């Protein structure tokens, strides 16, 4: 009896870890997209996830729209928010110092949080899982179907982003900006547009993450900050700027956190990701897959 329970528990933790890790992975990818084009770390990245979840709640529960439509509208809405953020706060500050950009994105994240609190209050919200709440059983562990949706969405995102960056004109142009913005400008790439797209894309990915995780872990107005921190941790662990590194590191982080929460102490589980973040920054800031020469650590 005990043997089955332990294995079942471990598998449970594994799935929880991979699920929450997928969210960290998506946040990390969002960080990377913006960082690659602008070298800005967008502290408001977590808020995109938060908005994705809460707006999804609005469209499904309040507006009672069918799920697919609600999903599309949510992603569109948050994408719009990301674009607005870029136009109004990032674009005007083209030549600002690194410190200024940090403070700007922090200010925007506070603003988003305040607006969310104004609209939705402080309570957590939930909406029904995409395909019902009957759990599946897997080696003695009860897995919610929503978990599979999370994994599916993450996989879709990975595939779409790969195609975008490797095959499409815009994607390749964005990578060029990351490598050498001056040269990119000289060959006619409109860097301003690329920056706008990077913010919009990151917001969209964040929205998907928020929409897909809310049926499992609910969503409230102040979830953004911790998500951003852990997502950043995943991004750094995987090597800032490295797309696959972010995905692997995010899932790895989620599993470690989940194992720690289940086997050691659940109160400190948030601290796990943060301690890992600090360790990576101290010991190997270029991360697992990053290029040591390319990890440009900007001064103020």
């Amino acid at each position, binding site marked *: 009896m005990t043997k089955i329970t332990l294995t079942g528990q471990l598998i449970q933790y594994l799935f929880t870890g991979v699920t929450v890790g997928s969210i960290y992975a998506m946040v990390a990818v969002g960080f990377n997209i913006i960082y690659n084009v602008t070298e800005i770390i967008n502290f408001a990245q977590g808020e995109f996830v938060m908005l994705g979840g809460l707006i999804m709640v609005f469209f499904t529960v309040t507006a009672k729209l069918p799920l697919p439509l609600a999903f599309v509208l949510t992603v569109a809405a948050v994408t719009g928010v990301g674009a607005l953020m870029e136009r109004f706060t990032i674009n005007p500050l083209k030549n600002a110092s690194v410190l200024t950009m940090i403070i700007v994105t922090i200010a*925007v994240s506070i603003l988003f*949080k*305040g607006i969310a609190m*104004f609209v939705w209050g402080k309570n957590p919200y939930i909406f029904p899982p995409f395909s019902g709440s009957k759990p599946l059983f897997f080696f003695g562990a009860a897995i919610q179907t929503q978990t599979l949706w999370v994994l599916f969405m993450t996989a879709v995102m990975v595939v779409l982003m790969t195609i975008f960056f490797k095959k499409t004109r815009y994607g390749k142009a964005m990578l060029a900006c990351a490598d050498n913005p001056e040269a990119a400008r000289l060959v006619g790439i409109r860097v301003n547009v690329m920056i706008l797209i990077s913010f919009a894309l990151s917001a969209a990915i964040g929205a998907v993450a928020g929409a897909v995780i809310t049926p499992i872990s609910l969503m409230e107005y102040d979830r953004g900050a911790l998500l951003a921190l852990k997502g*950043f941790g995943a991004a750094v662990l995987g090597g800032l700027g490295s797309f696959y590194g972010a995905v692997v590191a995010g899932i790895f982080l989620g599993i470690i956190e989940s194992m720690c929460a289940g086997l050691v102490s659940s109160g400190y589980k948030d601290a796990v990701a943060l301690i890992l973040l600090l360790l990576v920054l101290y010991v190997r800031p270029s991360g697992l897959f990053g290029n040591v020469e390319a990890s440009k650590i*900007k001064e103020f």
Partner: protein
Amino acid sequence: MQSSNRKALLGLTLFLILFPVVAMNVSAIGHYLDIMIFVGIYCLINMGLSLLMGYAGQISLGHAAFFGLGAYTSGILCTKFAMSPWLAMVAGVGITALVAYIVGVPSLKLKGHYLAMATLGFGVIVHIFFNEEVSLTGGPSGFSDIPGLSILGFSLNSDLSYYILVWFLVLLTLIFSLNVIHSRIGRALRSLHDSELAADAMGVETSRYKVMIFVLSAVYASVAGSLYTHYVGFLSPSSFDFFLSIKLVMMVVVGGMHNIWGALLGTWLLTFLGNEWLHVFHDFDILVYGAILLAVVMFLPDGLVHLVPRMSRVWKRG
């Protein structure tokens, strides 16, 4: 000391003397004395933050942690171990300085976003610690019955007496800080901010100074934390969260980062804003804070102190 700083100090002292006289005689603003005590406590933290950010060019998004470490050390040692509050304050400084050193050495090798995130992460870890170690800190509900301060048997239990204590310490620290700024150490800090490459080439021990100013700012915050504890008499982790760290940075940035007077101005403005004029917004004050921070950073990057013409001469000399 330079004459512009001397004049400013004189002006500040005069203001501080007149303030309680006015506040205590006009009942409508009687509670301003209490607010000014908090202004003083935050000024103590922010002078350190100004040295770190404005002069040495670093950043800390986790300074609430040092504030909290000083506060909790004082609180715990006084209630659980019946230590004298002044001794406990010294102990708090010792513990906070040690933590700041251990965290500072590896963190300050980082720059820009990495340093910002490292300090942010550290701040959150300490906050989680305050919340989780229930037997030590009382957990999320905190603990109370912390004794007040007394000097030579004279108990500081009135707003006025505490006001005098806090602002006396602030003035001492301000003079100390101004002395440091206008010295080879101050120049060394500013040089490593402007060009760490050249500062290294001139023999400035850049990493040592960065850690030193980080630890100094943590010490300022620890003393402030102890003062806070004995004034409020009650502690809970929610007072030492990420949002406070951001508010502290805001006060320094809004006032004017490259000038210690700017830190004082920003602290005074934002504390009054938060405690007095934003009451109508209740919890939505964070919306206003976010908007103010955004506006200042976008349109007035040198901070509000730059608007005061007299002050901008002081600003040039810093």
